[in-house]
C-alpha cells in the first residue's frame, strides 16, 4: 500500500469514527421520540375508547380531540387494546370500543395525530445530520494537512472531534428532551381532560381501579383534609407525591421524585415523565466518548502512514492487544464510570424511575450510622493483617532453617489460602460452635471459656479475624521465604563479624533486606482485607447485631437484598476511595521511609 493509500485508509477510519457515533446517536434520539409519540397516540386512543364506553356518548371526544377521531362499526378481532399502525403518511391508532358492561366490542375508534401544533418530525434530524457530516469532513482537512504536528495531534484534533460529535448529539438530545417533556404534558393533559369530561366523576373515582382504567395512570385519592385515602402507588412514592404542592398549571414536575402530578378534585394523578425514563443520555455520552477516543487514536497514528513498517508494527501490536483492551474497557473501565454515574441516581431494578440525585446518595450514606459501622468493622478486621504478617515472618524464619520436609511443610501452610473459602468457613464455624465446638472444648481443658465465638457481638469479628490469620499466614510465609532467600548470606556473616547478636542481625539485616516484600505483602493484604466478603457471608451474615457487617457485605445487601443500586454504587465508590487513600498513605509513609533507609 502506498503512503497515499495508507493515509486515505486512516482518514476513512477517522471519518467513520467521527460520523458513526453522530449517526447512531441521532438515530437513537429519533427512534426514542417516535416511540414516545406513538405511545402518546395509543394512549389517546385508549383513553378515548374508555371515555366512550364510560359515557356512552362519542361526542365528548369532540372537545378533547377535535376532528381527529372517528368511530366505525367494524369489529377488528385483532384490535383489543389500543394499537398504533402506520398508514399512509403517519401513524394512526385504533382501539376497540366496548359496551357499558365491558363485555362485547361494539366498534372501533380511530385516532389520528393532530395536524399541527403537536411536536412533529422536525427538520432538525436531516439538517443536523448533514451539518455534522460536513463538519466532520471539514475537520479532516486541516488534520490531513498537518498530520504530523504534535499540537494538532494532541489537542486540536481531539478537541475538534469532541465538538463535532457532541454539538449535534447534545442539541439533538436537548430538543428531544424538550419534546419528550411536551409529550409528557400532553399525556397528562389527556388524562386530566378525560377525567374532567366525565359527567359523574365521583362514581368512577369511587370504583376501585376506575381512574386507572380510564387514564392509564397511577393515582391517589385524598379526602378533604388532604389525607390519602387510596393510592395505587408504592407507599414511598405515595408519601413523596402527596407532599408535593398543588400544581399551578395542571402539571408539576418534581425532580427528586421524578413524577409529574396533576390534581383533578380529590384525585392526584402521577406520571413518570418521559424525559427521565427515556432520554437516552447514557448511550449518547458513551457513543460520543468512543467516537472521540477512536478518532483521536486514528489521528494520532496518522503520521505513521509515512512510515509503513512502524505503521505495520502498531497495527500488529494492536491485533495482539485489542481483545484485552476491549475487555478492559467494557468490563472494567466502563463499569467503573458507570458505577459513578449510577451513584448519582436513584436506581433500582424494580422502580423504573431513576432520577438524578446529585450527591444525595453520598450525603445520606456518609450520615448513615450503619455504613460507618460497616466501615469500622472492616477497619478493625484489617488489623488481622499485621498480626498474620508477624506470625508469618516468624514462621518463615523458623521454617527456612532446615531443608528436609520443607516442601511438604510449605504445601501445608499454603493450602488454606488456595482451597474453597466457603468450605473452610463452614469448618471453622463448626469449630467455633458455642457448645460442641473444638475451640471451646480446648479452652475448657485449661479451665477457660466457654467463649460465644460467633454468637456474641464482642467476639464475632474477632473470631473471623482469627480464622483469617490462619487462612493467609501460610501464603505470606511463602512470600517471606522468597524474600529471605534473596538476602545475601554475606550480609549475615559480615554482621556476625561485627559481633551482632541474632536480634541485631534481624533488625539490621533481615528487616531491611525484606522491606520490599514486607511492603508488598502489607499493601496487597490490606487491599484484600478491605474487600472481605465470603467469610462473613457464610459464617455470620453480618450478625449478630451487625457486629460483623463489613463494607462489601453491606454493599452486597444494599444491592441484592434492597435493590438500591444507586446507593450501593455510591458505597462502593466510597470504599474504593478509602482503599485508595489507605494504599496511598502506606506508599507515602512506608515506601518513602524504606527508600531513605
Amino acid at each position, binding site marked *: 500500500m502506498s503512503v497515499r493509500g495508507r493515509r486515505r485508509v486512516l482518514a476513512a477510519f477517522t471519518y467513520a469514527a467521527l460520523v458513526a457515533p453522530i449517526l447512531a446517536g441521532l438515530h437513537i434520539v429519533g427512534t426514542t421520540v417516535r416511540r414516545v409519540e406513538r405511545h402518546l397516540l395509543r394512549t389517546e386512543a385508549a383513553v378515548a375508547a374508555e371515555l366512550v364506553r364510560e359515557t356512552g356518548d362519542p361526542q365528548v371526544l369532540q372537545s378533547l380531540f377535535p376532528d381527529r377521531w372517528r368511530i366505525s362499526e367494524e369489529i377488528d378481532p385483532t384490535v383489543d387494546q389500543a394499537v398504533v399502525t402506520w398508514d399512509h403518511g403517519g401513524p394512526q391508532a385504533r382501539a376497540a370500543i366496548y359496551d357499558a358492561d365491558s363485555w362485547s366490542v361494539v366498534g372501533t375508534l380511530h385516532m389520528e395525530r393532530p395536524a399541527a401544533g403537536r411536536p412533529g418530525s422536525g427538520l432538525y434530524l436531516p439538517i443536523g445530520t448533514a451539518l455534522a457530516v460536513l463538519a466532520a469532513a471539514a475537520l479532516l482537512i486541516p488534520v490531513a494537512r498537518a498530520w504530523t504536528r504534535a499540537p494538532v495531534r494532541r489537542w486540536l484534533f481531539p478537541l475538534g472531534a469532541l465538538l463535532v460529535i457532541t454539538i449535534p448529539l447534545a442539541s439533538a438530545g436537548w430538543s428531544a428532551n424538550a419534546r419528550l417533556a411536551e409529550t409528557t404534558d400532553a399525556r397528562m393533559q389527556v388524562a386530566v381532560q378525560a377525567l374532567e369530561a366525565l359527567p359523574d366523576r365521583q362514581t368512577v373515582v369511587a370504583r376501585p381501579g376506575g381512574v386507572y382504567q380510564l387514564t392509564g395512570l397511577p393515582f391517589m385519592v385524598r379526602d378533604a383534609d388532604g389525607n390519602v385515602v387510596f393510592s395505587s402507588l408504592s407507599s414511598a412514592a405515595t408519601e413523596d407525591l402527596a407532599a408535593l404542592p398543588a400544581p399551578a398549571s395542571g402539571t408539576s414536575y418534581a425532580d427528586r421524585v421524578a413524577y409529574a402530578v396533576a390534581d383533578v378534585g380529590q384525585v392526584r394523578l402521577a406520571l413518570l415523565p418521559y424525559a427521565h425514563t427515556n432520554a437516552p443520555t447514557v448511550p449518547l455520552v458513551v457513543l460520543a466518548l468512543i467516537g472521540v477516543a477512536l478518532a483521536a487514536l486514528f489521528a494520532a497514528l496518522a503520521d505513521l502512514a509515512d512510515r509503513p513498517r512502524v505503521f505495520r508494527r502498531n497495527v500488529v501490536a494492536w491485533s495482539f492487544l485489542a481483545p*484485552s483492551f476491549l475487555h478492559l474497557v467494557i468490563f472494567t473501565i466502563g463499569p467503573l464510570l458507570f458505577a459513578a454515574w449510577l451513584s448519582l441516581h436513584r436506581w433500582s431494578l424494580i422502580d423504573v424511575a431513576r432520577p438524578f440525585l446529585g450527591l444525595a446518595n453520598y450525603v445520606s450514606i456518609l450520615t448513615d450510622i450503619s455504613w460507618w459501622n460497616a466501615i469500622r468493622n472492616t477497619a478493625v478486621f484489617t488489623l488481622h493483617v499485621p498480626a498474620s504478617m508477624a506470625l508469618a515472618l516468624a514462621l518463615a524464619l523458623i521454617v527456612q532453617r532446615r531443608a528436609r520436609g520443607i516442601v511438604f511443610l*510449605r504445601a501445608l501452610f499454603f493450602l488454606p489460602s488456595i*482451597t474453597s473459602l466457603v468450605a473452610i468457613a463452614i469448618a*471453622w464455624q463448626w469449630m467455633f460452635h458455642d457448645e460442641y465446638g473444638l475451640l471451646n472444648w480446648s479452652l475448657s481443658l485449661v479451665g477457660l471459656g466457654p467463649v460465644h465465638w460467633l454468637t456474641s457481638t464482642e467476639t464475632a469479628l474477632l473470631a473471623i479475624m482469627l480464622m483469617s490469620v490462619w487462612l493467609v499466614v501460610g501464603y505470606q510465609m511463602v512470600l517471606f521465604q522468597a524474600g529471605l532467600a534473596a538476602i545475601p548470606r554475606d550480609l549475615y556473616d559480615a554482621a556476625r563479624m561485627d559481633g551482632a547478636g541474632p536480634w541485631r542481625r534481624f533488625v539490621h539485616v533481615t528487616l531491611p533486606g525484606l522491606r520490599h516484600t514486607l511492603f508488598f*505483602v502489607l499493601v496487597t493484604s490490606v487491599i484484600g482485607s478491605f474487600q472481605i466478603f465470603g467469610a462473613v457471608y457464610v459464617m455470620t451474615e453480618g450478625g449478630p447485631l451487625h457486629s460483623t457487617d463489613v463494607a462489601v457485605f453491606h454493599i452486597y445487601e444494599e444491592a441484592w437484598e434492597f435493590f438500591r443500586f444507586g446507593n450501593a454504587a455510591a458505597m462502593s465508590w466510597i470504599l474504593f476511595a478509602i482503599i485508595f487513600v489507605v494504599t496511598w498513605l502506606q506508599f507515602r509513609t512506608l515506601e518513602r521511609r524504606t527508600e531513605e533507609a
Partner: protein
Amino acid sequence: MGGRVDRRSGGAAGRGLPHTTAEPPKRRPAGRTRRARTVAAWALTALLAATMLLPFLWMVSTSLMSELEIYRFPPRLLPAAAQWDNYPGALTARPFGRYFVNSFIFAVGVVLGQLTTAATTGYAFAKLEFRGRDRLFMLFLSTMMVPAVVVLIPRFLLIDHLGWVDSYAGLISTELVSVWGIFLMRQYFRTVPRELEDAGVIDGAGPWTVFWRISLPLAKPALATLGLFAFIEAWKNLLWPLIVTRSMEMRTVEVGIASFHGLFITNWPFQMAAAVTAVVPIVLLFLFTQRYFVQGIQMTGFR
C-alpha cells in the same frame, strides 16, 4: 526451556538444600544450645503445621460422624463408626454433581480465556513496539487497584442487559482477562532473548508466527502457573457466581455449598461432607502442581 524451569524451581522448591550442604560443618559454637534450639524450632514448626492441618482433619472427621455423635461434650475426635452414608446423603440432597460440572466449566473457561489474553497482551507489552505502550501498560496495571465490588453492579447490569444472567456466558465473560496474568506473562516474556525472535523474523516468520512458534513454547512454565492460579481463583470465586446465577442448575460449588450451609444449618456431618468434597479436588490439584504456585509468586513478587 527445560533449563529455565529447573533454574526457577530449583531456587524455589530445593532452596534449603544447597544451604545445608554449603554451610561449613566445622563451625559449631556451643553445640548443645544449638541442638536445643533446633529441636525447639522443629517442635514449634510441627505444632504450627498441626494447627494448619487441624481444621481439615476435623472437617473430615466430622463428616464421618452421625448426627447424634457430634452433639457431645466433650467432643469425640474420631467417629465411633465411620458414617460413609453421609457423603451420598449430602451430595444427593442438592445437585452437587451439577455444581461441580458448572464450577469446572466456569474455571476451565476462565483459564482458557485468561491464558489467551494474558499471553497475547503480555507479549505485546514485553516485545512489541507501538506508540503509547508504557502509558497503556500503566493503565492496565492501575485497574488492579479497582476493588471487584465497584464494578460488580455495572457488570451485572451489563450481563443482564445482554440476557446472559444465569448462563455460562454471563459467568465467564467478565473474567476473561486478568491484569495480574498479563503482568506475569509480560515479566516472563521479557526474559526471552530478543535475538530469538529476531532470528524468527529473519527466517521469514510473521509476528504471530514468531509469537506462536517461538515465544509461546518458551513460556510454558509461566502459562502453567497462570493457568493454575486462574483455575483456583475461578473455583474459589463466590461473589460473582452468587450474583449472576439464579437457578439451581447454574450454581457453582462455592455458591452451592454456601446455600447448602444455610439449608442444613444443624446437620454438620452433611455440611462437612459437602465441604470435604469441595476441598478435595483443589487439594489434589495443588499437591501435584505446587512448584508452579511458588514459581508464580516469585516471578511477580506478589499475588
